C-alpha cells in the first residue's frame, strides 16, 4: 500500500506494509541509515527521531500513524550542508562519541529538549535523556555538551525547527 511520508522536509511515497515501524522504513526504503536499531521496544533510544518537534522512538511507531506529520532524522539536523547544529558542534568539541552508535538518538533527544527548553537544568537534561542508553557510557560528556550548546549564543538564535517543506519527491 502506498503511503506518503515527509522526512527532513522531503515528501516520499513508500510502498510497504503500513504496520512497519518508521525505523525500518527510514533505513530500508529511504536508505537513511543514520537512525539506529538498538532494542525494538522503545527501551534504548537509538532510533529516536523528531516528529513535529517531539522526540519519538521510531522502532515502535507504525508508518500508518504518520500521515501529515513532519519527521526529522539525524540527516536533517544540521541547518545546511556547510553548518552543523550547535549540538553537533558541541559533540565534536567535547569529543562525545565513543563507538558512536547511540549518538544519532542522543542528538535527536537533546535537540528536541533544547528546542522546547533552551536553558535546561541538570535534572531536566537527565529527565530528557533518560530514554537514551549509551553502552559506551559517555553520559558525562553528553550532559556537558548539551549545556555548552545551550549557553552558546548560536544556540539561542539557530535552534533548528521546521518551517518549510520542500515539495520534492523521490519518485
Amino acid at each position, binding site marked *: 500500500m502506498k503511503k506518503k511520508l515527509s522526512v527532513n522536509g522531503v515528501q516520499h511515497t513508500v510502498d510497504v506494509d503500513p504496520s512497519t515501524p518508521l525505523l525500518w522504513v527510514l533505513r530500508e526504503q529511504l536508505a537513511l541509515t543514520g537512525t539506529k536499531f538498538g532494542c525494538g521496544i522503545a527501551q534504548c533510544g537509538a532510533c529516536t527521531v523528531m516528529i513535529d518537534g517531539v522526540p519519538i522512538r521510531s522502532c515502535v511507531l507504525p508508518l500508518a500513524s504518520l500521515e501529515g506529520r513532519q519527521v526529522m532524522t539525524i540527516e536533517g539536523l544540521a541547518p545546511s550542508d556547510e553548518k552543523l547544529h550547535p549540538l553537533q558542534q558541541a559533540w565534536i568539541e567535547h569529543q562525545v562519541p565513543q*563507538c558512536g552508535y547511540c549518538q544519532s538518538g542522543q542528538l535527536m533527544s537533546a535537540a528536541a529538549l533544547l528546542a522546547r527548553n533552551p536553558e535546561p537544568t541538570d535534572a531536566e537534561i537527565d529527565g530528557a535523556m533518560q530514554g537514551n542508553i549509551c*553502552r559506551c557510557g559517555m553520559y558525562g560528556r553528553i550532559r556537558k555538551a548539551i549545556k555548552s550548546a545551550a549557553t552558546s549564543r548560536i544556540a539561542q538564535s539557530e535552534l533548528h525547527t521546521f518551517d518549510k517543506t520542500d515539495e520534492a519527491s523521490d519518485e
Partner: protein
Amino acid sequence: MSNWTRRAFVSVGVLAGGGILVGVAMRPGNRADNLAELVAGENETLVHAFVKIDQDNIVTAVVPHAEMGQGAQTALAQMLAEELDADWDRVRVEEAPPVAGYAHYTVGRGYLFKDLNLPDIVVPSFEGVMMRLSNSLDLQVTGGSMSVRVTGTYGMRVAGAATRDMLKRAAAKAWQVPVDEITTEKSMLIHGATSRAEPYAVFAAAAAGMTPSYSPKLKQLEEYKIIGQPVPRFDIPAKVDGTAKFALDVRLPGMVYATVKRSPVFGGRIASIDDTAARAVEGVLGVVVISASESDTFIGAFAVGEAVAVVAEGYWAAQRGLRALEIEWDGGGNETVSSNSIFAQFEQDISAAKDRKIDLEQGDFEAVFASSQKVINADYRVPHLAHTCMEPLNATAEFRDGHCEIWIGCQNPLGFRRAVADALGIRADNVTLHNMLMGGGFGRKSRADWAIQVVHLAKTVGRPVQLIWSREEDIRQDFYRPAILSRFRAAIDESGELEAWQNTYVNKLEPTEAPLIPYDVAAKDIGHIDSPIHVPWGAWRSVDHSQHCFFTESFIDEVAVAAGRDPLEYRASLLKDHPRHLAVLQKAAREAEWGQPLAQGRGRGIALQESFGSIVAEVVEVTVVDGQASVDRVVAVIDPGFAVAPDGVTAQIESGIVYGLTAALYGEITIENGSVVQSNFHDYEALRMAQTPQIETFIINSGHAAGGAGEPGTPPAAPALANAIFDATGQRLRELPFSKHLQFI
C-alpha cells in the same frame, strides 16, 4: 640487504621491533598482490605497510585495528606521526584490510608473550618464529587493550622512525650532503646550511628503495610534540551527522534481510518446525535452517548451535515471520540447569576441593592458619553477564561464483575471515571481509558465530543477505562473562597484620594473573577448580579481571576492617614493594579527599587493580538512605605508562567505569530451564544518565611500558562501590548485582 624483498624479509626474519616486518615494503614495480589494495592511487608509494605518503604529502597511517570507539586509530596515528615528524594536520588513518600479508605479528607477540619487554634489537630467529606463529593463528585482534601498547609501541613508532630515517638518507643522497645535517619538521626535509626544504613526498619513492634501519632511534619522552597531546579524534565528525557507516548501514542492490533464532537451551537443536504461518507473513521469502558447527578461531574453539532463519524483504517482515514459526526444541539434556543449580555445583566442587590447581603458592600458609589469632572467611559470587553492545549483532554477505564477500564489525577480521572460509569450505583467499565500524565490541565481537550464520544464508539464498539479530537473541545467545564463586580465607596477627591469604575459585580463564594480588603477604595460596557448565563463555571487557578484582579488592577491605585499620592505609602498608601501585592509590585518595568526613548516610570506598599493563585506582562515593542508593562520584587514577592520547584515555576510563557500574548495579543473566531469562533492556538494564556519577579522571605518566586504557577502568568500579556501601551502611555486599539489596535512584 639492498635487495630487500618480502621473501627475504620473512625468511630471514629481519628487523627489530615491528612495523616494517609485518608491513612488507613495497616499491614501484614490486607490488605484493595482497597489499595492492593498500595503495589506492597512482601517485602513492607505500613505504611500508604502516605508513604511506602520497604526492600531496598526506601521511596515511595504515592501522591494523578495528575502531570499536576507543579512539585507538587516532592514538596509533599519533605514535606514527611523532616518530615521522609528520605534519599532524595532514595525517590520515585507514584501517588495514584483513589480508594474509597483514597477519598481525605484533599483536601475536603481545598476546602470546604477555608483557615481555623486548629489547630494541631482537634476535632475528625469534622474530621469524613470531611471524610464522601469528600468520598461522590469523591474528588481527582488537581487544586485550592491545592497540597502543603493542602495535603502537613495537609497530607504529618503529615504522615512523624507520621511514623518517629512509627519507633523510634519500634526501642526503639527492642533495649530496651528509645525512646528519638533515632535519625534519612537519613532513618536510630540511637542509639548513644550503637553505633547502622539500616535502617528504618528493623523496618517498627514493626512500622506498632504501634498506630500512633495523633499529631506528626512537624519540625520548621530552622530545614528544604529538604524542601526549589531546588531539581531536578522526572518527568523531562522521558520528555526529549520521554518516558513520556501521555494519548495519550496508546497503547492496537486491539485498534481503534475515533474522535468526537458536535453541534457547544452549547446545539444543530443532526437534520440529512448522513454518506455514511464517511463510504466510507478507514479505517473507523463505525459512532456512542453519546447521550446527564448530569453529576454532583465535580465542578458542566454540560451538555454533543449530539455528533457524527467516529471510524477507525487510527486517520487520523477517521478525514477524520468525515469531510466527512454531518450533519445538530439543534441549539436549540441559533443560533443568538453573543459576541456582550452577551455584550449588560450584559450592559443592569448591568444598570438595577435588583436583584443585594451584595458581600461586608461597610461604607455610597451613602453619599460619593453624596458629593464627584471627581468621576471616568469606564467599563471593558474580552472575553471568551479557555484553549488550549498543549495535545488535548483524552482518551482510554475498556469495557468488565461489567467492564470499562479507561486511561486518568485528574484533578479529583475519580470524573471522578464516572462520567464514572454513564454514563455507572455501579458501580464505576467496573471502573478502570488509570490517565496518563497530557499535561496541566489549569482547563479544571476537567470536564469529553470527558471521558463520550470515554466509550460510547468503550461499543458500543466492542474493546479498543482511542478517540482523533481535536484541532478544543478542542477550540470549551471547558468550557470557562467566559466573564465579570465589572462597577466601585470611589470617591476621594480634596487631592486625595480614599473615596469610587463601583463595579458591571456579573456572580459571584469561588472563591468568587476574586473581593475584599485589599485596605483600608472606603466605599465599591461590588456586582454582574446574567446574564445567553448559553456558558458553566469552571475553567481557577486561575479561577475568572484572570478577576477580571485585572479589579480592572487597575481601582486602574486609580484612582491613577486621584488623581495625583504615582500608587505604592498610593497602598502602602492604604495597611497599609496589611503588607504582602505591602512587596510583595515594593519588586517588588525595584527589577524592579521603579522610574528610562525609554526611550521615554517605560512604567512600577504594579499589586498586593492575590489568593490561595499566594500574588503576578508583574511589567511589555513595549515598544510602532507607535502602535507596545513589552513586555520587568516582575519582579514578590511571598509570598507563604514558598516555599517548590523554583525552582518549580519560574517555576510556569514564566508559570503563560506567560499564563496570552497570554490571555492579544491575547486571545479571539468570539461567532457568537451561536458558536465559532476560531478553531486552527492560529486564537487563544499563546505567542511564541520571544514575551516572560525576567522574574525575587523573593520569600519571610514569614512563613505564605502555599499558591499555579500554579495559583497566572497569575492574575497580564494583569493589570500590561495594566498599563505599559498607562504609555508608556497615553492610557487606558479597554478591553482584547490588540492586538485589538496594534500589539505585
